[in-house]
């Protein structure tokens, strides 16, 4: 990452982002959230009413590259950690549909057309529906949430996402009693997504969640980052962000959401089943993969040699969101259900 003035994007420290009063309120929320997810929702609702119409993305200057997306800060569900520079968030991407190298998506994703865009929501629902992207943008109030992001390959970022809880959309289609899982599917179009000509994964990319995970307020249906709509390489126009799971659970450029009864077989489960399980919760002690998950490299910290010698930080269970989500997995063997 470059620290040159003309390229660099200066971001304030987290303490400068969050007003003290709101920050204090967050403490109350976190205490409440410890009780359970329901308490979390209540606190969230209470908080939303209190949130003022502060500028988007925590007062950070918008990069001015794409269309702005108005949103209200959700400090209660945001980390106070310093955000990863916009440049890194938008040039260091895993999006195999545009190539396997991390720099490929930002170079190749220009071919993706994000308008018009429709999303089919179907399966075990009473009101299946095809949404236009503009309907989805208006379905619920847009919030900014600063989430930690942990890749399964041992690196991490902090990203100011824009979106709303997926539960808003799921409630709108009225799931039936048979809806046990949600699967979400990325666009299949080798012309716009040249990486799909490579049979490295079975296309289209498919990911999924258990219903209670999908309904959890932290699960974010995401439309933007850093105060603007999503750049193509980050999954425009709509993607999933599940902050307590490894990054690959967050399907990008979604065109279909299906509510189903049986646990979906995701793209990575199909490709390397011994390493990638359905849950893929961030867990420093469980590494069915070939490398340790004990710690992580924070991207874009800067420093000498581009931050090469900055120490790694210990990885936290559920990526530090244990207070909010641990109850979802009570009694489950996390080593078995990885």
């Amino acid at each position, binding site marked *: 990452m470059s620290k040159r003035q003309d390229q660099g994007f200066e971001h304030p420290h987290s303490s400068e982002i969050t007003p003290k009063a709101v920050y204090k309120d967050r403490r109350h929320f976190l205490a409440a959230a410890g009780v359970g997810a329901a308490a979390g929702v209540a606190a969230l609702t209470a908080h939303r009413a209190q949130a003022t119409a502060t500028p988007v993305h925590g007062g950070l200057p918008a990069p001015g590259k794409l269309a702005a997306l108005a949103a209200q800060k959700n400090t209660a569900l945001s980390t106070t950690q310093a955000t990863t520079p916009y440049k890194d968030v938008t040039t260091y991407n895993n999006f195999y549909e545009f190539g396997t190298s991390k720099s490929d998506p930002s170079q190749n994703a220009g071919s993706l057309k994000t308008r018009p865009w429709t999303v089919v929501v179907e399966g075990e629902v009473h009101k299946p529906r095809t949404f236009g992207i503009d309907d989805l943008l208006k379905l619920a109030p847009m919030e900014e949430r600063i989430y930690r992001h942990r890749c399964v390959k041992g690196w991490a970022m902090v990203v100011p996402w824009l979106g709303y809880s997926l539960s808003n959309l799921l409630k709108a289609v009225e799931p039936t009693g048979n809806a046990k899982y949600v699967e979400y599917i990325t666009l299949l179009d080798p012309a716009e997504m040249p990486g799909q000509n490579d049979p*490295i994964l079975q296309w289209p990319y498919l990911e999924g969640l258990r219903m209670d995970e999908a309904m959890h307020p932290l699960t974010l249906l995401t439309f933007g980052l850093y105060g603007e709509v999503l750049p193509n390489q980050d999954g425009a126009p709509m993607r999933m962000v599940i902050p307590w799971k490894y990054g690959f659970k967050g399907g990008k450029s979604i065109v279909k959401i299906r509510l189903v009864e049986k646990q979906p077989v995701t793209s990575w489960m199909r490709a*390397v089943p011994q390493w990638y399980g359905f849950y893929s919760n961030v867990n420093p002690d469980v590494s069915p*993969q070939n490398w340790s998950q004990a710690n992580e*490299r924070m991207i874009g910290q800067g420093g000498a*040699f581009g931050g090469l010698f900055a120490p790694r930080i210990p990885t936290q269970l559920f990526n530090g969101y244990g207070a909010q989500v641990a109850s979802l997995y009570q009694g489950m063997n996390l080593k078995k259900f990885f």
Partner: protein
Amino acid sequence: MTAASSLSLPRRVLRSRAVKPLLFVLCLLPFAGLFWRGWTNDLGPNPEQTVIWTTGLWALRLLLITLSVTPLRKLTGWAELARFRRMFGLFVFFYALLHFTAWLGLVNGFSVDMALRDVVKHPFVLAGMTALLLMIPLALTSTNGMIRRLGARRWQALHRLVYVVGVVAVFHFWWGKLAKNNTASPTVYALILALLLGLRLWWAWRAALARRTQLHRARAIDDQSNDPAGKQVSNQVGKQVTNQGKSRSLA
């Protein structure tokens, strides 16, 4: 015959004094490049990964280059190539050591405890570690003095370990890339390694075959003549052939 002027152009070039220093500098370039990129803050968003990948990849590339010296020498007849082999081999060790140090320091924060746990738990890491450990005796015995002390035959036998290093290293690379289900480039490296090792097997097999037919021929002569003098001759031929075979396998 010994006059340099009678040699082909490539052989004359390979004999020039400048070639070895030039190759030395070339082998250092990946390291110098990394250092320069670090110095100018240009190691990318994930400098740790850039360093680990680059050093690992060059260790593997140089290993394949090292292993191609002898086949290339045999195919072209350019005997001068042999004098670069040790340098290439030591550069493999140099990059492997950098790769290891980066992993130990940057990924594990120099915590030997954490690193060991990683080695024990994950075959991918164990494979890399094995390749490095197997290279240590090779690096230590790379001097002329050590060759003399061990004797050419024992030295040769020990340095056949490099074939095992090659297989384990490619496996380590392949396993690492399996994480992203992206095994195209490890497959290419594996094919090149298979070719280099396959050539050796082929030559060894042919040498063994030639040895046997020569022995048969010698025995046939032996059977034809019953005089004791003839027997002596054929025994001598047999001995010579065996010695030839041995010295050839040392190449």
